[in-house]
């Protein structure tokens, strides 16, 4: 079983099973936890992602193994500006929450 699934809150049923395993690892995270100028790699979408939004994000390039940098965050922090394959794309924080991956 993928290690990430154990820790993600969308997969709560496994959480208790794998809690011990996860505690030893660095916490895995969704993209809303990124801070400005941090790098990350896209691994996939969380289970709660609506189909339409997921498809649009995939079209825009949030596919597996894509390198992403968080360039900027808006005034109140609700919108995030990502550098994705060499262009800038802003999405809301609750959309960023649907994407998970690994932080560099």
């Amino acid at each position, binding site marked *: 079983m993928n290690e990430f699934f154990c820790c993600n809150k969308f997969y709560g049923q496994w959480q208790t099973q794998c809690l011990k395993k996860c505690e030893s690892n660095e916490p895995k995270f969704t993209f809303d936890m990124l801070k400005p100028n941090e790098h990350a790699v896209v691994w996939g*979408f969380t289970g709660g992602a609506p189909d339409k939004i997921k498809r649009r994000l*995939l*079209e825009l*390039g949030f596919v597996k193994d894509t390198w992403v940098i968080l360039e900027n965050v808006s005034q109140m922090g609700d*919108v995030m500006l990502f*550098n994705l394959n*060499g262009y800038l794309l802003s999405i809301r924080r609750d959309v960023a929450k649907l994407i998970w991956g690994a932080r560099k």
Partner: protein
Amino acid sequence: MKLALVGNPNTGKTTLYNWLSASSEHTGNWHGVTVDFKEKQFKIKDENFELVDLPGVYSLSPLSFEEKITRDYLMANKDVAIVNIVNANNLYRNFYLLTEILMLNRPTILVINKTCSEEKLLYKVNKNALQKELGIKVFEVNAENPRDVNDLKNELYKLAKSSTFKNQKNEIFNQKFNKNNEKIENLLKKIEILINFNIKEQNLDKNFVLNKCLENDQFVISKLNLSNFQKDELVKICGQISAEEIAKNKYDFIGRVLQNSGTKKLNKTYGKSKIDKVVLNKYLSIPIFVIVMLVVFYLTFFSVGKFLSELLLNITVNGLGEFVLGLVKSVTSNQIIYDFFAVAIVQGLGSVFSFLPQVVILFVCLGVLEHSGYLSRLAFMLDDVFARVGLSGKGVYTLLMGFGCSAVACLSARTMEDKNSQIKTAMLAPYMSCSAKLPLYVVLGSAFFGASNVFVILAMYLLGVVVALLLSVFYEKTFLKSGKQTFILEFPPYKVVKLKTIKNIAILNAKQFLVRVGSLLISVNVIVWVLSNFSFAFKYVAIYGGESIMQTIGKFIAPIFAPLGFGSWGASTALVAGLVAKEIIVSSIAMINGVSQNGGYNHLKISSSLTNATNPICFTPASAIAYMVFCLLYSPCFATMAMLKKEIGKKWLLVSILVQFAVAYVISLIVYSLVNVVINKGILVAIFYLFLFGITLFAFIYIIKHFTNKKCMGCKRCKK
């Protein structure tokens, strides 16, 4: 030959369209400028071309209304050749759409639009290798350069003459793409066996439909007329693969194509700029936004705009007016005809015509904002606020365009991702103070507030925005819930706005303004003049003479507005006439109040006539403000209504009109009583009243909430 321009948003489709077909469609440096498809015919040498400009899309699976237009057009028109425009700075992402377009098996060419100079390009393309790799013609052009476009025209001519292009089926691509991934290939074969018959029956593009079925695209599947058995089987097949894998496969393919064709990418970011460090700075962003808006306001209403307006007034309107009247006098001595020209033409038209420079400058300012790339940053900044009132940050485009023209703004709401927020945004656009309301503010403001009319006019603009945002909260909480919408927005790079672009915007808008004045305004003015000068028995009574048709009607309507302080027949009929177009309010006032004998036209004369209590239309400072507020907020003009009906349907149009009227009435009532209190009893009392009003309102909302929200949400405060 029929050509359709397809591509990602903001890749220069409309720019190319304008050059190729010699049109002047609206362009801009942000995503979603074009929201409707446009068609035009043109000729290259002896070959006829039909060019279609389509809204920008990211893929052929649409989210918003304007993206559906592109998809539907491409699926319905089988005889069209596709010109796919890609941005040379963002090939990787742009090629995603190309893979979907090539699946359609239409004759396709690829146009790589180089929007900046050679050295700054992020992707270095080897054209010939790419042509070989994709099996289609590739052209590199700069859509803003006429020489490049001429070269492209020659190439298009050659293509139109060649029969191989017309029968192009993109076999090289399809073979390569299908062999890209074994798992997908197998699944596609399974689907093909399952639905091959349906595809042939419905006469659809096989490769495209197969791939879309694999992606579980409901629209395409519904077009196939599948039986229940087929549907179940299809779901089973689709269940074996995730959307992530399909997209990954496409991007892998694109990566391979780019690599094989020797494309090099610089390690830079498209659209990233040092300006953003200042503009999007935590502390500076809002002040910069306010300053930008104030500059636009200042340029339009004061410095340049005002100066030019006065110049135009003195030279043209007065001079021309006197000349026309002199001419009329020499031809005929009939008083009625002379009155007609003096009042309806010289005064009525002159009152609006002299605002030409100000309106044009306003549009130029908005155009500069659009072309600079600042708008997208604005949407990014303001999405925080907009999300809290139930709008998307993209609503910034709609609202800002609402300052220019409400009808155009309503159309731009199409870019919203869901229907409810589209309706909501379109309904809010008319609250923005459009350019047609500008003359009224200046005339009324200068009549009653002298030098401090700056603040009154500015307050009007702010009021419009505030009311729109508050109403958005109201709609969100009641019957137009859109919940948390997605806000996905690309950042275009900053661009220096060329003088030529500014010139084009100015000429285009000046033309539109003149056409409006010359056709709509003249005809309505004639009607208003006839109605206000003739009685029901069709006897000439002049404006002061007695019971004209308008006066009779006006006296019926006037009591409605009496509580707001402008219950005269003239003021209320001007409002009714203003439904045709908002400029008519000022021209009607000028005509009804006008002192025709002296000829010529002057703002001051109109302004001073408004303060004179013996005139049909007169105001006090309080009622003047109330009148301005009412004109700002009440039901939109017919053009906007027609657009709203087209965009959001009859039901919502009716809601929109009624809500606007009610809001206008209530707010001008509040403003009127408040200003009266300030004038009569001092500002402290007014603040006290406002405070009381606020408390009552708050209590009212609280009580409603308390009684309607009976469901226990399980909070810890009570132990139920």
